[in-house]
């Protein structure tokens, strides 16, 4: 579990240029990490590449927090 979170965190820190400490499971991309809609689309793209999978648009739309992303990836990998 931690592994996925750390990899997701690295991508977020890199893409959104935010402090590592701000990236918690509860953090909302738009409210806490100052991402706009396009940033979130771009993050999802990066996650798809990092974890070598495709996230359907309907699923991607439900990803609002860091935890949403981590849990979704975990659900696919288990």
């Amino acid at each position, binding site marked *: 579990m931690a592994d996925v979170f750390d990899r997701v965190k690295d991508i977020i820190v890199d893409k959104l240029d935010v402090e590592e400490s701000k990236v918690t499971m509860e953090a909302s991309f738009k409210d806490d990490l100052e991402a706009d809609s*396009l940033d979130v*689309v*771009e993050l999802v*793209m990066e996650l798809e590449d990092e974890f070598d999978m495709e996230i359907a648009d309907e699923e991607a739309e439900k990803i609002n927090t860091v935890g949403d992303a981590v849990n979704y990836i975990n659900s696919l990998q288990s």
Partner: protein
Amino acid sequence: MLKGKSALVTGASRGIGRAIALELARQGANVAVNYAGSEAKAQAVVEEIEQLGVNAFKIQADVSDESSVKAMVKEVIGQFGSLDILVNNAGITRDNLLMRMKEEEFDQVINTNLKGVFVCTKAVTRQMMKQKSGRIINVASIVGVSGNPGQANYVAAKAGVIGLTKTTAKELASRNILVNAIAPGFISTDMTDELTDEQREGMLAMIPLAKLGTPEDVARVVRFLASEDANYITGQTIHIDGGMVM
């Protein structure tokens, strides 16, 4: 000018699309030549491009079909390693008076000429966002600005392309992807060759420069929009019509 860039031109087997593909190649770009049905003509364009010393290949796809467009874009990125320029040129006509136009004629033109631009644009955006650069040039038409009797479907699609251009330009500007449209007027192609002398005279009377444009006149503007010279231009529609619509 475009050395090392890679371009995808839809509907590039003849007419304006062919001229655009050749012009981009002359500037050093590698070019993927998309076609719907004219395979032999597309192959001839590829060979002409290769003689210019750059890479080219032909690729069949119906631009309104998302899965074949996705496969096409993947192929282009696979062969060239990047995708810097998309020219949405593919288009068809099914002219008829509104009163006589069949639903099917309307749908076909909207699907290829408008939905095709959406589908192709969406398919290249991922790559261009990653590159943090890209140019999308949409071939609209002057009739999309002025209207034209007998072309309700075509005009609606082309006007739609101009609106789509503006929205795409706004959405993607922050990623350094510039999106513009061109609106050619009467350009000498297979389509205009079929006109009668009388129709031709009537057209010329409306054009301040009093002559038809050539596919090359259009291609040079696309080359400009694809180049570094157009770094501060996005969301615009450039008329290439001899001054017909101002």
